[in-house]
């Protein structure tokens, strides 16, 4: 056990809170331990900002709710407790021909966390969000009641809980519909492209025929090369004969907190240039295991420590289709002007399948995700500038990644937030929720 388990992935903000483990789904919630404070369900701490934190309150750690309940290998219907990690689901189901319907960029999130944050992945344009594949779940409330939720039962709680940031209750278990696959591999193609226009052309041309698409951007490139990067697309591999590509079992761990962030101008330039040039040809095609394809960063355990103890911010915005080309260009230009690069810059087009979630983040258009080391005011000012671009383009910021957006922006861009109060558990609160709602 390295470090404090009860912090978010960005390790910002730092908070004071207590925690209680939940062990059995049939047990009532230990509300007596909460007394006059509030509590918040906690999964595996992979959201970046403060949606998983409850400063001055209590966390109910759901990670030990990790029992499988039912798996039908004929239909791909899978039911488990909410603390099961996506990695644990895959370990069980891939060999039997089933994959997650939607997965985020790390497999170390819990099923409950994936629902509460209504996560999306490289297949959003085809499959929508995680919540759209949740057949049903059970919600535990502080008054001892249990609410069975599905599209047909308690539909309003179902919608408020998907993307509901844990505020409606503790998800005890959930049932999801898995996606059939032939094997553990992805038929992948990586295309080096030269600028933002090429990105949009590639993305539009790929989203029909490729299940998964995403681009990594060299965000230090400027001018005519602005937005250049690698476009990665793939489909679940067909049945194939012959030798399967090998999967490295090596797992690195980032063992210490460096005294300062190791991400700085020099290392960024080096990494971005090397990564852009990592392949000799403009197009590389081949079979890869699902782990490096979906979870390249999971190979480095605790990679968030590379940013030092002050932590980092992720900025992820969604921009509606009509405005996306201009807004993404402007965001990238501002990064260039600021001279603060993002180690990871990921760009993807969202599809138009609406999520049932009241507070779900994706919208038809484009999404850009950026990481910045926490350099205090300077970083916050830069992110405020990004907000201006996002705001005027009619876009919004992802709460699961956020630690600093303004209450006005949240309330305007997530107009359903007022409906949440009808379904929230009166004893649940989070640092995020207080931050974006109470100061209004």
């Amino acid at each position: 056990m390295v470090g404090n388990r009860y912090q978010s992935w960005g390790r910002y903000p730092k908070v004071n809170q207590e925690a209680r483990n939940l062990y059995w789904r049939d047990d009532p919630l230990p509300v007596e331990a909460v007394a006059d404070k509030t509590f918040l369900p906690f999964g595996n701490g992979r959201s970046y900002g403060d949606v998983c934190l409850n400063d001055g309150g209590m966390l109910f750690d759901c990670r030990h709710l990790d029992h499988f309940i039912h798996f039908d290998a004929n239909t791909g219907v899978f039911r488990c407790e909410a603390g099961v990690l996506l990695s644990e689901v895959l370990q069980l189901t891939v060999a039997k021909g089933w994959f997650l319907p939607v997965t985020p960029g790390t497999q170390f999130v819990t099923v409950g966390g994936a629902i509460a944050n209504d996560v999306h992945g490289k297949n959003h344009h085809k499959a929508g969000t995680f919540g759209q594949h949740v057949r049903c779940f059970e919600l535990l409330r502080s008054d001892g009641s249990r609410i069975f939720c599905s599209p047909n039962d308690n539909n309003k709680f179902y919608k408020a809980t998907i993307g509901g940031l844990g505020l409606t209750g503790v998800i005890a278990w959930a049932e999801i519909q898995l996606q059939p696959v032939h094997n553990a591999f992805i038929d992948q193609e990586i295309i080096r492209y030269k600028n933002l226009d090429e990105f949009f052309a590639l993305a539009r041309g790929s989203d029909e025929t490729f299940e998964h698409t995403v681009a990594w951007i060299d965000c230090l490139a400027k001018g005519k090369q602005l937005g250049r990067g690698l476009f990665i697309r793939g489909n679940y591999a067909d049945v194939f004969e012959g030798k399967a590509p090998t999967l490295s079992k090596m797992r690195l761990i980032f063992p210490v907190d460096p005294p300062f962030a190791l991400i700085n101008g020099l290392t960024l330039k080096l990494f971005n240039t090397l990564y852009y040039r990592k392949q000799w040809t403009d197009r590389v095609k081949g079979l890869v295991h699902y782990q490096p394809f979906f979870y390249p960063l999971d190979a480095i355990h605790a990679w968030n420590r590379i940013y030092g103890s002050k932590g980092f911010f992720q900025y992820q915005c969604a921009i509606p289709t009509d405005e996306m080309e201009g807004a993404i260009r402007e965001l990238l230009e501002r990064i260039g002007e600021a001279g603060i690069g993002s180690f990871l810059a990921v760009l993807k087009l969202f599809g138009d399948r609406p999520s049932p979630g009241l507070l779900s983040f994706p919208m038809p258009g484009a999404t850009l995700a950026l990481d910045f080391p926490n350099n205090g005011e300077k970083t916050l000012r830069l992110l405020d500038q990004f907000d201006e671009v996002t705001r005027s383009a009619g876009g919004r910021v992802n709460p699961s990644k956020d630690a600093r957006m303004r209450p006005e922006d949240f309330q305007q861009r997530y107009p359903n937030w007022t409906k949440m109060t009808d379904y929230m558990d009166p004893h649940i609160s989070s640092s995020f929720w207080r931050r974006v709602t109470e100061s209004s």
Partner: protein
Amino acid sequence: MRNTLVIGATSAIAQATARLFAEAGDALFLVARDVNKLAVTADDLKIRGASAVHTASLDVLNFDRHQSVIDAAIETLDGLDLVLIAHGTLPDQKDCEQSFEITKKAFEINALGTISLLTHLANYFEQKGEGTIAVISSVAGDRGRQSNYVYGSAKGAVTIFLQGLRNRLTKSGVSVLTIKPAFVDTPMTAFFSKGLLWAKPSAVATRLERLIAKQTDEAYIPGYWRLIMLVIRFIPESIFKKLSL
């Protein structure tokens, strides 16, 4: 694939270990007190690959039922290859000091209950002439300390009982494994604040499975506790009695 009996099957260490048994395809017979938790555990292990999962509810304090539950396991699985005994409670030392009733109950659960089960199982395995008996004891059983000597002496009794049993059963080809976990992050220890020395049940399980395969006699989990306990046991009693441990 083994025929495996797990007693105290809903405990955190037993569950984590039984998951490895299930992944290896074992046929399992699970025994625990709470029927609900037993069912939750059984469903989980079945999905994880156990070739069969059977359950029986038993309160270990109900000594009269020990023989019949063990007989049921032997009959249902058509013989046993491996037994893991993992039930137990951690009594509050201060409560024990005020009440012999609480002390007695702690002994009945942690020492006598285990010894009763082992008495029946030993005779079965001795006659069978092969198999493994693995029992969760504790580092607390190595030396009495003021902070938990009731739990410690109960576990100490189990450790010494197992030494004798091992001595007796070796010639019958039966392996007896005493496991002494140190600090493990489980519901039993939920109210302790956890530091660096705490291990996860899944880590304990991985090592336990390896110890069973190697037919080890006695082992600490994590392994470095062997050194810590070597030092603890080496301290002369005249000094030890003055320490606040």
